[in-house]
């Protein structure tokens, strides 16, 4: 039986209380994308700036939601800043793999657990326990889906 401490790891609560990269960027030039969790009304706003090398030069997070969605967004912002779109794609697949979401089920290319990209998840590992609470997986992935959309729109 998974307990609360599997879900609410200390590092998650830390990001919830002290969210990183919280705020706004002027848009344009920044890309601004809103993501909603229609089930619970949680909302994430991602502000994204890409430089000429398709590298995330700056990112800010707005919106409101539960500790899982907000801390996941905070950790994500810290993890992707300064990285290229390709690197962020790998990180996203690795993160979703940890959430037991594989791209085949999303209509994309099949990614079996064994051929997930070999990237270090760092702090994001703390969200591993969310898998044991299936209704909360959508909270954890909201920021990532919103980021993916922001990247698509920024590179379009």
């Amino acid at each position: 039986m998974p307990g609360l401490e599997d879900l609410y790891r200390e590092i998650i609560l830390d990001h919830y209380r002290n969210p990183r990269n919280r705020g706004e960027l002027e848009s344009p030039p920044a890309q601004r994308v809103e993501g909603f969790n229609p089930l619970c009304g949680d909302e994430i706003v991602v502000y994204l700036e890409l430089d000429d090398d398709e590298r995330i030069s700056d990112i800010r997070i707005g919106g409101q939601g539960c500790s899982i969605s907000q801390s996941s967004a905070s950790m994500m912002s810290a993890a992707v800043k300064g990285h290229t779109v390709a690197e962020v794609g790998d990180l996203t697949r690795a993160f979703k793999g940890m959430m037991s979401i594989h791209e085949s089920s999303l209509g994309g290319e099949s990614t079996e657990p064994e051929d997930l990209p070999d990237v270090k998840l760092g702090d994001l590992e703390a969200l591993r326990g969310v898998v044991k609470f299936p209704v909360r997986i959508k909270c954890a992935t909201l920021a990532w889906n919103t980021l993916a959309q922001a990247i698509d729109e920024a590179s379009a």
Partner: protein
Amino acid sequence: MALTSPLDAERIRADFPLLGREVHGKPIIYLDSAATSQKPNAVLDAMDLYYRTINSNVHRGVYQIAEQATNELEAAREKVRAFINASSVAEVIFTKNATESLNLLVQSWGRANLVEGDVVLLSHMEHHANIVPWHMLVAERGIQLRWIPLTADGQLDLTDLDALVEGAKVLSVTAMSNVLGTINSVRTLTDAARAVGAISIIDGCQSVPHTSTDVQALGADFLAFSGHKLLGPTGIGVLWGREELLAEMPPFIGGGEMIRDVRLDGFTCNDLPWKFEAGTPAIAEIIGLGAAIDYLSAIGIDNVRAHERMLTEYTLRTLSMRFGDDIVIHGPTEPEHRGGVFSFAFKDLHPHDISQVLDEHAVCVRAGHHCAKPLMKLMGVGATARASVYLYNTTADIDALGDALEAAGSFFAF
């Protein structure tokens, strides 16, 4: 002041097998009856008995068990009729749920009677089931929606009712809010509608299970509700309508059961209520709903309301005594004006996080927008946590909620 109830909730609990189970090793505290109620043995047994002894399709068989099944189904219709005091069983239509009842009205009555520019008056506290079907007709027909605003304590603000209803063709409003618990003065609304020649539709999803309903005294033209919030099974709902109006309405879904004759060049409809009941009905569920109504009637719906009023008073009082400014319970402050539905904000915790900790304590509450996003927006929140009670809840359940909230507060304490 001692609070009293005419019900022996402890004895009632024994009739509900699910309430005897544990989750996470603790006895379950079920506080989510506004979403769906638990089911007494009487309902489970009636459905089981149908499948075990008289399972057969209704209305067409001449053999004994088919006749028995038909009789049981029509007997359940009579129980619903009596429960809401409809004047005839022809006015009691079985649907899948309240959502389908409301969609039936919009698709059948609405499309036959509304044209571009016609006004439908709703309120800011409606469930999506009484909003989205109308939005669909806005898109198709260009009808207009108007909204009755709310007061600060979550009651309908009827100050400008006359102006709002002026020129409206339809008024469609909930009798009790599934978020705030507010009990609306339905008669005032239906009188205002009738005065301008508008029809009135009442969403009775939350009111019918908890307060006595007399459709002839409501002054409404239609009433929608779901069986599963009324101790009955899922998959069965009711639409009541005045016979003159139902008779004029075109059918909603076509197929078997709803026809008198089918030819190569067309069809004629069956009589009411079957005209609106295409296909094999939810026979076991209808029989289960009948058993639920028998159960509630034996206890007395006024006693249910009195018990929940007591619990409402207890909940408002204990939670505010225990938590002071750390808790905000939305909606009317007087138990008189509300049912046992409590949406609340607690400290600065997100409803999801609250309900997650409460679950650890086997306390079942709902977190989310409760299918009332326009109301959430008006309240300035994305979601709330919501506890709701029924005849089987006790003051001990509310104490358990308080204990679990205290635990949530310390778990997330900075």
